[in-house]
């Protein structure tokens, strides 16, 4: 096992400011203690409803945001991680710990170090209609990462841009065009080309197909598959559509209100879900097959606010299996099968 991205106990809180002096009066716990490991070459799917912290997690992992606490290790050897853990546990020699974290923990990086890291990790945003600058030409959009990271310039840059456009299936004749002259699918291709420009190892996708039509969505998914194979990429793929997650991802993490509630291989998570939330998510997903209409579990209520999550297990107010225990204590992720983890006191 070669772990590329290792997220440990990651938390990202956003302060709610109020009062005359704008002091924080509360915290939105967008990501509240997530531990995830993405193996090299894996296509990790992150599913959940809106407001569960998927996007925040992705943006924190590529360091668009600084985590509140927790560690993110990007391509750090296991020995170093173990060393950090050991010195954290022992509590002394904090000087050495600080220097180790400064070297290895993404969460502590700043300035040039982050820039250097972003060459290797990129993000593709959700909506291709807002993620491209309407006043930049296609060639400038795709070339921008190359300029910023001082990878290539001049003629070499232009050749690289043309090559990138070829990889994502756009023609070089469109170099002088502006984003509004492209369709949604083409724009998402541009965004993907831009992400590929610095030859990253890791790309996070934030619902790249949710703004696209079904037929275009299939084209983009096939493109992602090919790119992953050709360049040996590692993906963190955020989606709320379970059918997509199930058909393309190698590993699935289900999130609810800032926490991962279930992790496992797609066939296990979707066919034998162990967490009541994943189960209802699976059964609520409409499948294009009129014979499978029956047996839907309709969850009562809505996702609570992450600013004021319910105590104990965050899912208990909507859960049919909730007990006293769930109201008081939050369950931890437990191994329940082959690489299958569930955070529930009463798994199915």
């Amino acid at each position, binding site marked *: 096992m070669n772990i590329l991205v290792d997220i440990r106990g990651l938390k990202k809180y956003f302060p709610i400011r109020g009062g005359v002096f704008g002091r924080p009066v509360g915290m939105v716990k967008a990501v509240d203690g997530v531990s995830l490991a993405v193996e090299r070459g894996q296509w990790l799917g992150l599913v959940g*409803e*809106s407001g569960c912290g998927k996007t925040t997690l992705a943006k924190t992992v590529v360091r668009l945001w600084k985590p509140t606490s927790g560690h993110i290790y990007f391509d750090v050897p296991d020995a170093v991680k173990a060393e950090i853990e050991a010195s954290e546990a022992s509590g002394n020699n904090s000087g050495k710990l600080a220097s180790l974290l400064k070297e290895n923990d993404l969460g502590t990086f700043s300035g040039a170090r982050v820039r250097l890291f972003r060459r290797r990790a990129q993000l593709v945003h959700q909506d291709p209609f807002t993620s491209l600058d309407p006043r930049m030409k296609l060639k400038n959009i795709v070339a921008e990462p190359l300029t910023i990271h001082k990878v290539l310039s001049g003629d070499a840059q232009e050749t690289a841009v043309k090559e990138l456009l070829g990889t994502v299936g756009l023609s070089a004749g469109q170099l002088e065009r502006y984003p509004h002259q492209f369709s949604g699918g083409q724009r998402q291709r541009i965004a993907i080309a831009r992400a590929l420009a610095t030859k990253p190892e890791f790309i996070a996708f934030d619902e790249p197909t949710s703004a696209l039509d*079904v037929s275009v969505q299939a084209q983009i998914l*096939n493109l992602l598959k090919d790119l992953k194979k050709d360049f040996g990429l590692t993906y963190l793929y955020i989606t709320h559509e379970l*059918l997509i997650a*199930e*058909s393309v991802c190698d590993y699935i993490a289900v999130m609810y209100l800032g926490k991962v509630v279930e992790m496992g291989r797609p066939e296990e998570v979707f066919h034998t879900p162990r967490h009541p939330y994943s189960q209802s998510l699976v059964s609520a997903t409409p499948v294009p*097959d009129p014979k499978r209409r029956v047996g*839907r579990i309709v969850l009562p209520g809505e996702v609570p606010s992450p600013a004021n999550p319910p105590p104990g297990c965050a899912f208990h107010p909507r859960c049919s299996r909730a007990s006293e225990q769930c109201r008081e204590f939050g369950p931890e992720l437990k191994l329940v099968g082959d690489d299958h983890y569930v955070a529930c006191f009463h798994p199915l």
Partner: protein
Amino acid sequence: MQQDLIRIRDLSVRFYTYEGVVHAIDDLDLDIRQGETLGIVGETGSGKTMTALAILRLIPYPGKIESGSIVFFDRDGGGELDLLKLSEDKMRSIRGNKISMVFQEPGAALNPVYTIGDQISEVYLLHRRQELGHRAKQRVDSLLSDGSGFASALRRPFWRWQSRLYDKIAQDSHSVEPRFLSHVPLFRRLLRRLRDEAKLLTVDMLKNVEIPDPARVAAQYPHQISGGMKQRAVIAMALACSPELLIADEPTTSLDVTIQAQMLELFRRIKADRGASVVFVTHNLGVASEVCDRLTVMYAGRLCEVASVEDMFLHPSHPYTKALLDAVPIPGKELQTIPGALADALNPPPGCRFHPRCPSAMPMCQRERPKLKEIGKDHMVACYLF
């Protein structure tokens, strides 16, 4: 055989833009039957929303309904009406009353400066004035008969006046005296009970769409409630007058899966309770297969295929329908893509508009447009393969 509720014939909608004329809908024939849920599926720009808007004559500028007829068979009185020939006044009495619509984005469909209750009451105040007058009169009459003591003796003359006014409204919603008074400050307070009655009906309606604590929600503004609640409120508004046809334009697109499941359940219950027809516009084939009885597939402003849900998913016939179904990610199956891009709306290809992307295109497809042909029971396809 169910009876038709709406019969659309040769409907054409065009948009006159600076770049040229867009044929948003091109000679469309479609029947909507009584008590059925008809799904309209298609990709962006296929004309599915325009079809829905055309039924209500709400095509936005610079679009125009060019030709055709939309005949509405009104169950309770009214008889046959060609919606495209009605006066704007008459059309307004049908919109929201006999035919109503749920729009795509609940956040954008609600007015942010009025409370939910106000916005739903408006429907009653507009279309159910007589009923409200009747209810208000009963309430005033009960006050007249029950009231005793000094305070009530003082108010009695006003109550009598109110009773007379509400009676007039109950007889004729356009009667002159109440209408005149409604424009006179102070005196218009005599009519405030209409609004109170509308509020009561609104709360009932909100309860009907399973909103918890309806009285509180009615007093809230749209930004104070969640997306799912807003969509329920919009559905309540559309159902307020028990319409014969409910048009839902992508009602679940902006909602989460679990909330979407709640909505689909609600739609199914509403249909069973009220026996109304529903037109369900969606691009999500999964949702369509869940709620619809019959499906139509549209491509570039034209119908490709009309069939029952079972037929459509088990025996898709039109190459576009097949391609669309294959493009839905199904675990364990290789994803199929449709080659090429959606037909250019300004310069659509001649003949069958799908032929440049069609795997089984023939020379004939480039020349002439295929007609809808019946290939099975209730199964129509517009393709030369059949």
